[in-house]
């Protein structure tokens, strides 16, 4: 049986949709969560789910859309998790300074206490690695995940076709970052599925 994977965060422009689906199908992805598509559709056995990435102020507009609602947070100030936000959101996408600085431990503790799933973009992590940046913030987050205090899903975060990689390569990335094999695999398989189920897409896997 061929194992099926879920890409929980993809930012490839819609003009490259057919090529993206072809590549994702080759790489055994069954579901892709895409940012710029209006509604759910299936192309060559790959299910495409719309995603709305919002900041704190845009949350009221996101309520109506039938998509995966993700709060994008790149600094601790953007990580406002009020009850109003938590009612609407399905996950929090962490990036920028939150990945590179370890002094924002309080923000991660906030995420742990609230229990919202966290999405990390592999593309951004690979960019940070290739530019030689410190990933101490990410390490703190992964440490919480290793102790099962938080749910993390790794998405490709691809802005272009060449940034979409095979799931085993993402697995390799997580292992190199210090996660155990079980946790690394679940960040690519079961955790994305549970996020999608939480958003009402029960039938995806």
């Amino acid at each position, binding site marked *: 049986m061929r194992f099926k994977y879920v890409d929980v965060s993809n930012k490839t422009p819609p003009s490259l949709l057919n090529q993206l689906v072809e*590549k994702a199908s*080759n*790489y055994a992805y069954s579901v892709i969560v895409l940012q710029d598509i209006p509604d759910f559709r299936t192309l060559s056995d790959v299910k495409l789910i719309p995603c709305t990435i919002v900041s704190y102020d845009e949350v009221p507009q996101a309520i109506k859309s039938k998509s995966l609602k993700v709060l994008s947070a790149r600094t601790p100030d953007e990580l406002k998790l009020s009850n109003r936000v938590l009612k609407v959101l399905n996950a929090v996408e962490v990036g920028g300074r939150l990945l590179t600085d370890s002094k924002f431990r309080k923000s991660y503790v906030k995420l742990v206490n609230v229990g919202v799933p966290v999405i990390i973009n592999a593309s951004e992590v*690979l960019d940070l*690695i*290739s530019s030689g940046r410190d990933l101490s913030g990410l390490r703190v987050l992964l440490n919480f995940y290793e102790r099962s205090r938080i749910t993390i899903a790794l998405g490709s975060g691809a802005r272009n076709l*060449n*940034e979409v*990689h*095979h799931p*085993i*390569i993402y*697995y*390799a*990335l997580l*292992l*190199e970052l210090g996660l155990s094999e079980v946790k690394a695999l679940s960040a690519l398989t079961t955790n994305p599925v549970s996020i999608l189920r939480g958003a009402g897409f029960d039938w995806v896997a």
Partner: protein
Amino acid sequence: MTGLLEAVYLVIASVALILAVIALLQLIIFRREIRYVLGSLNSKVLRQVVKSIEKRRKHKNRYLVVRLISSSNISVNELQKRLDEAFIELYGRRGYSEASPRVLYFNEKTSKAVIRVRNHYRWGVLLALAYLERKELLTQVFPERTTGTYKKAKRYAETA
């Protein structure tokens, strides 16, 4: 005769009882020590032990079978050169010398390559290949298999 047997059984039972009481007393006395030992055997300690054992293990080679799709024709030497550059950029020269990744075989028909690498760096080679994919030097990278011998790896690389 039966009286003698009963006496023997009684002696054995009493000795067993005394031993059980002594064991119980020992358990109570050393309870704190036992709890300390069990507490220290958590996952973190075990992981450190496993890591130290892995370090002491002989540096074994692993043979990765990967299917590489490129827009242009690619030779073994060219692939080796690109892989070296990517690996050095990610892990530095020290990491490269420890891992010593070598492209041993590339089948143009199946477009599968066999890469030899030290066991600890097998995931690093896949990351280096992903790095080449990001730079558009390779179009697609499919990790297929990891084997312990070159013979087996070549057999997998020859089959489509």
